[in-house]
């Protein structure tokens, strides 16, 4: 017997409904999560989100609330975007940085009130993030609470997400702008945080409902019923990953990590150096002056084969120059795409590269990103 001792996987309140629906489960950041529902499969789940609507259990995500008289100053200190620009009811993409300008995690910051912020963080980094936040807001008159187990979080994503969710709520979600949120009733439950956010490159919403099994299952099943006419599918982490990759959204541990800086990841537009000091700022200013040695680019495979995370990237002359961070068949674009770090000297669009796939060189070229951008609304 040689069974390693590991902590048991955590389950969301929707675990048994996933099992009943036949989901294939996978360990993701210590959570037992659906990777796909084989009755449709990853590919159809992906396409449902691009053309109709899909729902995702994202309750494994963590939540940290920072509130108190100096909450804004605290959030400004620990995150790179400018939270002072957020109106109440508005959210933005940001990141918690180490002094080195690398990533503790990427986060979505919601301004609940003048002195009240909600940070939504990644599942695999929940404990690390909370310790980091708690330790670095100590000097401020505010409190940091771990609300990670306070919600069942469901993402409703796709061009039909609005029409689906609208059937469960009286809140005026149609007039909600992208990356704004409101509070309203969802079926029988009052005062639910409803945010027009997501991680798929589509329009959509994320709702934060009470975490008991009964409420969670009820809302999940009501959403599936409401979306029936639009071909709604429950979607797993597999489709979540291919959707975010087509939209070139970063995944912690892949495009961003403890050893990759904001500038290298190309996320400087979310990093506001003019807002005052914050953790990581000095290093980023320095790197801005000295320049970066690697940059994130999008690749499309020309030869057959899929470039996967960790595969080596070579220039046209077979010199090793970088590494793939994420790669997959892209179900909507019907191409093999990947993200990679390469030197800026090799990052020009159209530049030919090679990816080593199981000992063989496969040709690829650099393409503009995001690979997929949703069509603008006609109205």
């Amino acid at each position, binding site marked *: 017997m040689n069974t390693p001792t590991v902590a048991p996987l955590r389950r969301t309140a929707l675990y048994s409904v996933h099992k009943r629906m036949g989901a*294939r489960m996978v360990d993701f950041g210590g959570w037992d999560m659906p*990777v*796909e529902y*084989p009755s449709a*499969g*990853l*590919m159809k789940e992906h396409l449902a989100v691009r053309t109709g609507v899909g729902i995702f259990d994202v309750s494994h995500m963590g939540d940290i609330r920072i509130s108190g008289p100096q909450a804004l100053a605290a959030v400004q200190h620990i995150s790179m975007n400018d939270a002072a620009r957020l109106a109440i009811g508005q959210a933005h993409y940001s990141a918690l940085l180490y002094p080195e300008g690398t990533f503790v995690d990427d986060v979505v910051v919601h301004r609940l009130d003048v002195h009240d912020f909600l940070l939504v963080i990644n599942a695999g980094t929940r404990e690390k993030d909370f310790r980091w936040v708690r330790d670095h807001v100590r000097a401020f008159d505010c409190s940091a609470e771990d609300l990670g187990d306070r919600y069942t979080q469901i993402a409703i994503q796709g061009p039909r997400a609005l029409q689906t969710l609208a059937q469960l709520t009286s809140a005026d979600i149609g007039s909600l702008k992208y990356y704004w949120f409101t509070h309203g009733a969802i079926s029988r439950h009052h005062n639910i945080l409803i945010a027009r956010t997501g991680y798929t490159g589509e329009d959509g919403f994320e709702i934060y409902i009470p975490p008991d099994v009964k409420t969670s299952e009820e809302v999940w099943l009501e959403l599936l019923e409401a979306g029936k006419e639009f071909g709604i599918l429950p979607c797993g982490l*597999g489709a979540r990953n*291919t959707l975010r990759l087509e939209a070139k959204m970063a995944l912690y541990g892949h495009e961003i990590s403890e050893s990759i800086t904001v500038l290298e990841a190309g996320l400087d537009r979310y990093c506001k150096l003019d807002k005052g000091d914050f953790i990581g700022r000095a290093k980023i200013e320095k790197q801005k002056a000295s320049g970066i040695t690697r940059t994130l680019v999008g690749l499309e495979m020309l030869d*057959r*084969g*899929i470039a*996967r995370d960790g595969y080596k990237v070579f220039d046209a002359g077979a010199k090793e120059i970088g590494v793939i961070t994420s790669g*997959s*068949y892209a*179900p909507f674009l019907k191409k*093999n795409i990947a993200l990679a770090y390469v030197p800026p000297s090799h990052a020009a669009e159209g530049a030919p590269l090679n990816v080593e796939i*199981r000992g063989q060189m496969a040709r690829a070229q650099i393409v503009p990103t995001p690979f997929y951008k949703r069509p603008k609304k006609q109205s």
Partner: protein
Amino acid sequence: MAYPAGFRYTQQHEWVKVEGDTGTVGITDYAQQELGDVVYVDLPKIGATIKAGESLGTVESVKAVSEIYCPVSGEVIALNELLQGAPEKINQDPHGEAWLVKLKLSNPKEAESLMDATAYDAYVSAKAKEHSA
């Protein structure tokens, strides 16, 4: 799923159908279910000699790369060209239309040591139980 009688099966979920000194090789229905939507198949070259247990190539789904092990020894004499343009056939007809390669067998008796359909069925049923436990 009834696994075809007359085929032989490995613990890594490949099958081989022996006719004279020719062996047709594929992956099982259990394997395609585990993989999910197959998007790419990488096969050896015609003329390659492969021993039982050696890599025959890879089958990739959107999520994962899976190495295929050759159930028997022989020389590759045919590749299923259909799979280059339609890898999803592996999900639809893994024991039929979506065979991977044909081999000229070094020893047609070699396959007899592999599981038959009844044994393989029991093997995957036990695995399925493990999963749901």
